[in-house]
């Protein structure tokens, strides 16, 4: 409020101070127009046109900026909706369907049959239920790793890396600052970013080693990853628009108010750096 008052006062001063100026400009415009020269109307028209054009360009830029911002907000809203849905589905699968299938398996196991072929059938059904439970687990965990919310990002990442090393035979060197702790929203974004980098490394880089560093100083958290794989040409258009991975990487970095740098070249591997403030900023509150 105080600021606003001050502003008003200062603008008032400005206006009142400029009163004479306006008058003189007005006069000088009116007076010479009595003796018409052919260039002057042209000049006036040109400057009016120029002003209109300038205004037009300015509002175009403003519009464009607003569009970019709106678009970014839209993507962010999309991501948040997506994550909420994922969380709900993962929880429902895990908490509802899992125990049901387990209960059904126990019931089947307590059937007592004389017939050998029936017994075989029961064993088969049990195996099928086990497979369903296993599959359900994978689906639920892909949607949202339970450990992330319970034990935080560091343990979630360790589990993720152990699993990927086992399944994909890639070596992942993970070093981190033990004191890192983030709000659940923010650690989810960071987790997804690292997950996408890992997916891309497996899917595209054919790397043997992926190094992941997660460091913290009092103001910033930085993520640094480096693979020794094939790399890619960032400017190559055939890479653009292929997947959603990179787009989401940038949006999530934005959500963390962070800066993302991707450095890659064919057969040179890929290095990705993300710096973001340790504490939540207000930059994303609705304006």
């Amino acid at each position, binding site marked *: 409020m105080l600021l606003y008052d001050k502003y008003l006062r200062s603008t008032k001063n400005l206006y009142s101070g400029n009163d004479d100026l306006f008058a003189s400009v007005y006069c000088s415009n009116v007076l010479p127009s009595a003796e018409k020269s052919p260039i002057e109307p042209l000049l006036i028209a040109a400057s009016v046109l120029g002003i209109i054009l300038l205004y037009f360009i300015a509002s175009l830029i403003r519009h464009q900026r607003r569009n970019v911002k709106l678009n970014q907000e839209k993507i962010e809203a999309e991501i948040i909706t997506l994550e909420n849905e994922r969380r709900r589905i993962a929880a429902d699968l*895990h*908490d*509802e369907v*899992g*125990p*049901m*299938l*387990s*209960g*059904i*398996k*126990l*019931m089947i*196991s*307590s059937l*007592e049959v004389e017939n050998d072929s029936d017994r075989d059938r029961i064993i088969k059904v*049990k195996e099928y239920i*086990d497979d369903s*439970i296993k599959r359900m*687990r994978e689906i639920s*965990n892909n949607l949202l*790793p*339970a*450990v992330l919310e*319970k*034990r935080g990002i560091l343990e979630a990442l360790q*589990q993720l890396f*152990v699993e990927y090393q086992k399944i994909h035979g890639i070596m992942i060197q993970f070093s981190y600052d033990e004191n890192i702790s983030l709000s659940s929203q923010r650690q989810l974004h960071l987790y997804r970013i690292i997950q996408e980098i890992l997916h891309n490394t497996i899917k595209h880089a054919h790397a043997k080693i992926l190094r992941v560093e997660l460091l913290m100083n009092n103001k910033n958290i930085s993520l640094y990853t480096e693979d020794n794989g094939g790399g890619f040409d960032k400017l190559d258009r055939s890479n653009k628009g292929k997947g959603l991975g990179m787009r989401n990487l940038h949006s999530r970095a934005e959500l963390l108010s962070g800066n993302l740098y991707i450095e890659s070249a064919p057969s040179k591997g890929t290095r990705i750096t993300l710096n973001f403030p340790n504490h939540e900023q207000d930059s994303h509150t609705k304006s």
Partner: protein
Amino acid sequence: MNRIATPKADIRVIIADDHAIFRDGLKQALASEENIFLLGEAADGKELIQLAIESNPDVILTDIRMPVMDGISATKKILETSPGVSIVGLSMFDDEAHIVDMLEAGARGYLLKNADKSEIIDAINSVFHGELYYCKHTSFTLAKMISSSKFNPHKRKDKIEFTEREIEIVQLICEQLTNKEIAEKLYLSTRTVEGHRLKIQEKMHAKNTAGIVICALRLGLYN
């Protein structure tokens, strides 16, 4: 399973889980056991505490995550008043963190919900006889978490002595090799490895591979 050979003491059990279907399955699985008597069932932690006070069971099988009150809080409360009861936590596969909390709260064992009927029976009998029970399907991550947790109810009176060979085999067991694979690796017969494994299990008071791995991690035989 030859349970007829030795007459068994009766074990009085209550179960708690918020899913009726799972309770039903559990009930039917226990019904065929001669020495197990189901005293009642609860749908959440609060009901469980009430039921435990009323029926004074030997063993409680309880889900860890439940509405109203979870199995961890219920376990703590129950053990305050009746420290003699043996509690086994039940959980879905990837609830490692909760399983550790459950053990730290005083549970004597845990089972994953997709465990077989025979394993559930095994677990009930084990904890009833004062042993610990780790589920067969324990992941290495969970084993690590348990071994480094505050849960450490083993009696550490006598130090366990292992032979070189046994230590070698323990390490291979921790790497999830089967008896056959261990035999091939060490140029032994599978029978010999089986013998060593039994000896190791006996020394560690372990019921299964999970028990061996957790004990090995705790003793620093493998890391």
